[in-house]
């Protein structure tokens, strides 16, 4: 029953909390970013097989639901998530890899499948006219931080990027 009470709490908190939301389109590509509070992140992964202790290293960072969509009519886009970065006070912070989080959380194989699939893919090719993904993205900065985030992709090797400034990571 304790777990039931916990889930009711997580459901209420998760549904009621939207801390930061932003969307930007550049060169036919749209990126959206919405903060998920730490409690809701924890709830999601506990329901997928993590313990609270296992997921805490991840949930206590700034976690967002993100989408990236290719609305170009002709161009195929390609990205590597490792090229995306956050910037705070002139210092660049990389987006952590899935392997980093696997090591940090010590997840069991079943929970790891869900974790990996719930993240924004580490590499993807989006065909034109609307391929897209939605996934979580962790910026490894303390709750309460404010930063810019830059998303990078290429079209036939030509560099493109989009920056959303002033993202708040609300506690």
């Amino acid at each position, binding site marked *: 029953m304790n777990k039931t009470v916990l889930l009711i709490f997580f459901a209420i908190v998760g549904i009621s909390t939207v801390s930061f939301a932003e969307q930007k389109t550049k060169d036919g590509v749209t990126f959206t970013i919405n903060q998920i509070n730490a409690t809701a992140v924890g709830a999601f992964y506990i329901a997928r097989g993590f313990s609270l202790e296992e997921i805490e290293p991840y949930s206590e960072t700034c976690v967002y639901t993100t989408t990236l969509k290719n609305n170009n009519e002709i161009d195929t886009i390609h990205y590597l998530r490792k090229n995306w970065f956050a910037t705070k006070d002139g210092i660049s912070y990389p987006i952590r890899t899935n392997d980093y989080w696997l090591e940090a959380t010590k997840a069991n194989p079943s929970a790891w499948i869900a974790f990996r699939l719930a993240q924004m893919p580490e590499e993807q090719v989006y*065909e034109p006219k609307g391929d897209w993904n939605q996934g979580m993205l962790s910026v490894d900065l303390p709750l309460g931080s404010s930063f810019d985030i830059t998303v990078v992709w290429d079209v036939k090797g030509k560099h493109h990027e989009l920056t959303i400034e002033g993202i708040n990571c609300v506690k």
Partner: protein
Amino acid sequence: MLNNIYKSLIILALLGALNLKANQAGLTKHFTEVSPSKVAPSLKLEDTEEEIINIEDLKGKVVIVNFWATWCPPCRKEMGSLERLYSGLKDKGVVVLAVNVGEDEDPVLSFMNDVEPPLTFNVLYDKDSKTMQKWGAIGLPSTFVVDKKGDIVYKAIGGRDFDDKNILDKIISLLK
């Protein structure tokens, strides 16, 4: 009864965690042509009725393979349109294989009980995600359309409005 309440709470918690932001990108009304087409990888999985489904046995049908999970907002959002596509075309030779990735029976059956319209196509389990990897799918949802010969002719990354005319016309053209 308590079990159903518990399942509903889990779903609420998951959706709460994700803040249900699937609408932010919207469902796409387009399939990408795979040209040249390529032979579909093997797919042999157990479904919710504990039957083994083998795509090899479906030659002569148009097969839509959709990789999904219950916790994935765009997957949930597109399911209704996938069911409507299937309902309209199943008698003409369209088969849908909705391959759930990484979950066990409880959340899948609970979702199937709750979703509207109710799902009547095959839902299969890819618990270790190896079939998804074999098909080259990276994110969820991912969808592949396999023609009567067993070749992948269309693909889609991300949620789709499957009963949009543009997509329906492509599927219908494969039935000729």
